[in-house]
């Protein structure tokens, strides 16, 4: 049996504040196989982002296990988790989160620099990606000189620069207008298809979710597969 890329085994997450316990996720079991695109939908506050944070090694479950290529994230030291995020995960956030101090191409380069690649090696790669997403003329622009859609394209390039095994996208079109959203959706799915990426997408947009091979609904702290 082929080991899935990502597997949740009875994952629960709760937050404790004083005497109050707030349960967010309860005994979740699900997996994402390599090359698959999986969408998690649900209402705001249902715990979608918490699920993504746990999948990306940014947060730890209260109980249960998260396995990435069969390796438990739970026992990893901070250093290993940092390396895991850098090498295996590409993050795309709702509000792109680019650094205004740097140009578009420099923003794209950051994960590769963290990985240890030289600027000489990584800059051509970053430029190629930016050209691919239609930003050949905007490479040297700072994020504050780019439109919302352009910024999100830069963020997608940044997520792809290290050839990650898993792309995690948290409401990638959530902060964009309808026209820009459409463009970003097409670009994201085209790139995933072209490069054979695995995508774990969180969205409350059911139309966007339907573009994924699998759709899960997060409701009442549990996951239910819709397709």
């Amino acid at each position: 049996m082929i080991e899935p890329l990502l597997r949740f085994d009875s994952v629960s997450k709760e937050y404790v504040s004083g005497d109050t316990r707030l349960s967010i996720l309860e005994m979740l079991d699900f997996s994402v196989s390599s090359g698959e695109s999986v969408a998690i939908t649900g209402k705001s506050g249902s715990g979608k982002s918490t699920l993504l944070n746990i999948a990306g090694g940014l947060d730890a479950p209260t109980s249960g296990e998260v396995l990435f290529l069969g390796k438990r994230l739970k026992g990893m030291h901070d250093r290993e988790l940092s390396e895991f995020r850098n090498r295996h995960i590409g993050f795309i956030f709702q509000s792109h989160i680019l650094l205004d101090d740097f140009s578009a191409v420099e923003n794209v380069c950051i994960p590769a620099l963290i990985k240890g690649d030289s600027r000489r090696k990584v800059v051509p790669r970053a430029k190629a990606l930016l050209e691919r997403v239609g930003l050949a003329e905007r490479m040297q622009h700072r994020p504050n000189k780019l439109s919302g859609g352009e910024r999100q394209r830069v963020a997608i390039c940044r997520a792809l620069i290290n050839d990650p095994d898993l792309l995690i996208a948290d409401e990638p079109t959530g902060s964009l207008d309808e026209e820009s959203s459409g463009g970003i959706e097409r670009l994201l799915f085209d790139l995933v298809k072209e490069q054979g990426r695995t995508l774990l997408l969180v969205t409350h947009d059911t139309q966007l979710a339907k573009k994924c091979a699998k759709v899960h609904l997060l409701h009442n702290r549990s996951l239910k597969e819709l397709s």
Partner: protein
Amino acid sequence: MSTRFGRWLFASILLLRGKSTYERVRLIRSAFLIALVMIPLVLALIFMDGMMRGITDKYILLQDGHFQVYAREEIDGDLGDIDPTIVSADYVVSGYGIVYSKDATSEVRIKGVDASYFNDRRRGQLTFTDEPFGSETGRLASVILGKVVAERLGVEVGERVAFMVVPDSSAMVVRPVLAVVSSLFSSGYHELDSSLVYMDRTSALRYFPKDKNAYTEVLVQSEASDRLDGIASNVISQSHLDAEYATWDEFNTTVYQNFITSRQVILLVFIMILVVAGVYVASIAQELVQDSMQSIALYKTLGARTGQIGRAFFAAVMVVTVSGMAIGVAIGLLVGSQLGFVMEWLGESGIAGLQYYLLDFPVVVSWSDIIFICFTMLVISSFTVFLSLGRIRRISPLELLQQD
């Protein structure tokens, strides 16, 4: 993971990539404030060491020598043959007395010396109105008064003064002695100018008993001043003398101890100032981290380790600190090298109280102390910055992502 990201981040912090004018000015201001701390420390150090060295040199060259050998008669031969570091050896006689003019009196130390006593090194510390013992005074003693004593007595060159020698024993007959003022000297140090009188040695030997008041005053090269006991013992043994010796600091224990204590207290004050400066440096680190919270959270999310980020911030803050220190030390040295002129100018301005300072001021740069101050500053700053950068560890990537 390599250090490439660390170097890139370090350069980004230091080069203030994309930062506002306010942030740029703030970092430059931080370096400037560190420089402002270092300037007075270096100046104080130069002033303190210069003053101590200057006063010490005055006492050694003009009053006591590096050491004194208590042999009744003049030591035969050239002492330079015994130890090549010996610069001069002068047979002198010394005692205390009161000098009178028709208007005033003054208590003084009388030192009987030959004209040859005023060699080049001593002349470098003195200015004379007339050549020492250059004029004929007949049977009367020839004296050179300090300018302060002369002003107090209201006498000038060529006039007469009377001395009353303070007897060392009841067997001595005390009577006034007349002397002619053959010259006036100024040493640039009020204490000496107001208390020291040179008399020609032949006359002085008539009033002070040789067995109690005569000795050989020895000067050595500066670099040999830390082994005076060895040189003095060598002189005594090789000259086959049955004599004792004493070094300059034994005569001036109070002055010497005051110097040592003042120096220790000032260095302690310096360290306290450096601790305050170190806390300020830590605040620079805190401000930089505070301004970069989102960036740090993003770097962590993208896989950067806390240590990588911390080292880059640490190095950037330390570069600012070292730059400020270097600028401060350079300005301090530059201004310090002009302290001699400043003191001279202040002396001429007649400000009250300055008379107790040395106005003929040698610039002494103690590199070991400057290195000590810089090293202490670096250690304290490193420690405080290291502690303040603990904040980076507490910045969670989740702070960036709390959206759901």
